[in-house]
């Protein structure tokens, strides 16, 4: 029932969009006809329609982008200088609070750990797997299987890994894989996700598991794009496998590696679901995105503090944003 309603609404929405585009174009052509007119009038009308039509095509997208992304960015910055309800100006008090708040400092520290470890390891594994799977006949099957976690939600992945980290008291049979292995080697079982500091790494493993496939797919395409001649020349010069890989191939795909790295970095800054589902920030595993979510609803919600944490995340993203824009304009300049 609900699904039917959704599909009906969806079709109505799509139709409305189609009607909008069709009707606005029709009206434009009706007001400024270019067919059937002669000479100057036709070319004048053509010029006018050509000036207006792009904006008709862009209007819905610009509207949605403004409401859902541009306005909120401005508003969040504004809110970060106001109190919990968003009415009274409090200056930089939210940021003051932030700097003295232990939980915030913990989050920043953890976020930096995530930023150091996750993009590096995901890219590293992705590169290794891409290079290895290109040499074997079942490489594509292997790639599909390693790529698969990409389709799994962070929450689903959290359940999968919580099962692996599951802990039973010493002496009873472990049903979590990790503890079973530890016990098999004679160690004592641990409640992994409650170990302060180290639990961060156990959560990071989940994101690395998900993102390696992404890195692999892109780096594998980049490796295949390397000109054969450079490798052949290296082989003739007597380079061995390692040298070819690290000295000939990797330097040629630095640009792609950087793209993969920054894409994962952005994702890491926004990581929320995994922490919420695994620990909800307990045992010193808090991160910025989860802390922000927490303040949004904690005690009825403190929008000022929540917004100021969001602004911090945004500030961390800005360098990458500028770098992306620069690359994109460089590229389209050549287009």
């Amino acid at each position, binding site marked *: 029932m609900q699904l039917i309603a959704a599909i009906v609404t969806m079709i109505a929405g799509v139709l409305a969009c189609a009607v909008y585009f069709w009707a606005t174009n029709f009206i434009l052509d009706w007001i400024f006809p270019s067919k059937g007119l002669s000479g100057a009038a036709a070319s004048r009308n053509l010029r006018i329609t050509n000036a207006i039509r792009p904006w008709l095509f862009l209007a819905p997208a610009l509207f949605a982008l403004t409401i859902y992304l541009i306005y909120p960015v401005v508003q969040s910055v504004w809110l970060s200088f106001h109190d919990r309800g968003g009415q009274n100006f409090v200056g930089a008090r939210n940021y003051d609070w932030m700097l003295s708040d232990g939980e915030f400092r913990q989050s920043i520290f953890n976020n930096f750990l995530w930023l150091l470890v996750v993009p590096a390891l995901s890219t590293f594994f992705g590169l290794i797997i891409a290079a290895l799977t290109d040499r074997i006949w079942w490489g594509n099957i292997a790639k599909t299987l390693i790529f698969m976690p990409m389709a799994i939600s962070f929450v689903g992945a959290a359940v999968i890994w919580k099962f692996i980290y599951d802990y039973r008291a010493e002496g009873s049979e472990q049903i*979590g894989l990790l503890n079973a292995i530890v016990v098999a080697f004679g160690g004592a079982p641990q409640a992994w996700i409650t170990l302060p500091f180290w639990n961060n790494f156990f959560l990071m493993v989940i994101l690395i598991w998900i993102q390696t496939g992404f890195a692999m797919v892109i780096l594998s395409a980049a490796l295949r794009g390397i000109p054969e001649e450079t490798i052949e020349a290296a082989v003739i010069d007597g380079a061995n496998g390692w040298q070819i890989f690290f000295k000939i191939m990797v330097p040629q795909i630095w640009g792609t590696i950087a793209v993969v790295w920054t894409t994962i970095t952005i994702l890491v800054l926004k990581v929320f679901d995994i922490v919420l589902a695994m620990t909800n920030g307990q045992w010193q595993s808090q991160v910025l995105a989860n802390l922000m979510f927490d303040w949004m609803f904690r005690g009825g919600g403190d929008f000022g503090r929540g917004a100021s944490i969001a602004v911090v995340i945004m500030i961390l993203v800005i360098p990458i944003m500028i770098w992306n824009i620069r690359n994109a304009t460089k590229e389209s300049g050549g287009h």
Partner: protein
Amino acid sequence: MNPSTRSPLTWAVHLSVLLLVLLWTMPTAGLLISSLRDKDQLAVSGWWTALATSSRNAVARAPSADSQVERDGKFVISGNLLEGQGGGQISAFGFSSREPAKFKPGETAELNDGERLTVQADGGFEIVSDTKMEGSRGQRIFYTASTPPRFTIDNYIEVLSAAGIGTSFLNSLTVAIPSTVIPILIAAFAAYALAWMPFPGRAILLAVVVGLLVVPLQMSLIPLLQLYNGVGAFFGVPAKTYMGIWLAHTGFGLPLAIYLLRNYMAGLPREIMESARVDGASDFDIFVKIILPLSFPALASFAIFQFLWTWNDLLVAIVFLGAGEDSLVLTGRLVNLLGSRGGNWEILTASAFITIVVPLIVFFALQRYLVRGLLSGSVKGG
């Protein structure tokens, strides 16, 4: 490389890839296998032992003296230790916790007060006494039972009927499908304008779109929540509606959609469009009749991205749809179950698998488009 060094190297490559593949698939495989196991077995043994016969030590209490029957001048209490457990074998038993495996099945144990306990391999037991037994508590019987591996879909039946997963599945579909379709249409027109229609400010607009690609969702949450509450209050409608979340997903998905589609459309050959224009086709005709059909691969790539993202999303759903019982999407439901049924792995594994099965199907069926989309989205950006 000569053949003699090549061979061990190739083996090393095969082996290390195999190892990596195992590492990457094992977590999911464990979840799937566990979700199909009997819940009693799941709770006491690891999923990697699923095919082995599991042996467990347990204790049961015989019925109390009230249930004794008189037979041939003797008093007898009987029953079956493995009743309701779907088969198994007793390999040892005992009557005290110090020696829980003292007797083999079929043997008779002399209890302290002249009663005799016999347990058969199939779990049947008898307590026989020459005199009438007394006491309100039944005799404790310790036993070691080995249970054959058992697979069942009971966990799924239980989860679908009781844990609210069925409703949430529908909610997720209701969120994901329109959230995928609506942005495509809007973005396609915008992408065409950015790729092929000259107008002042086009380069700046493109830069803005690229910039918006990485704006963290967190920036949007609070202002939009306020906006939705305001709009809801103004029109007297609830603030948390499906319409609201569809539009939110549309807004958040648009930068990527415009960027991907523009890159693709900009790569289409100019001649096609010019010859159509010479034939008198307007931009609108060119877009609908030529560009849109040609862009199908890019549209499919984005559709897959957006579907996976909206289906797997937790944050947008709980903020804009709420965490109420009726409106929870699958990911939200799973988080709730993690909190409330954290130890019930039969519930969690089955629920988790239901939440990931749709994306996995989409992934395996349409992987080609997904890869293509990833490549056009990222490699070109560098």
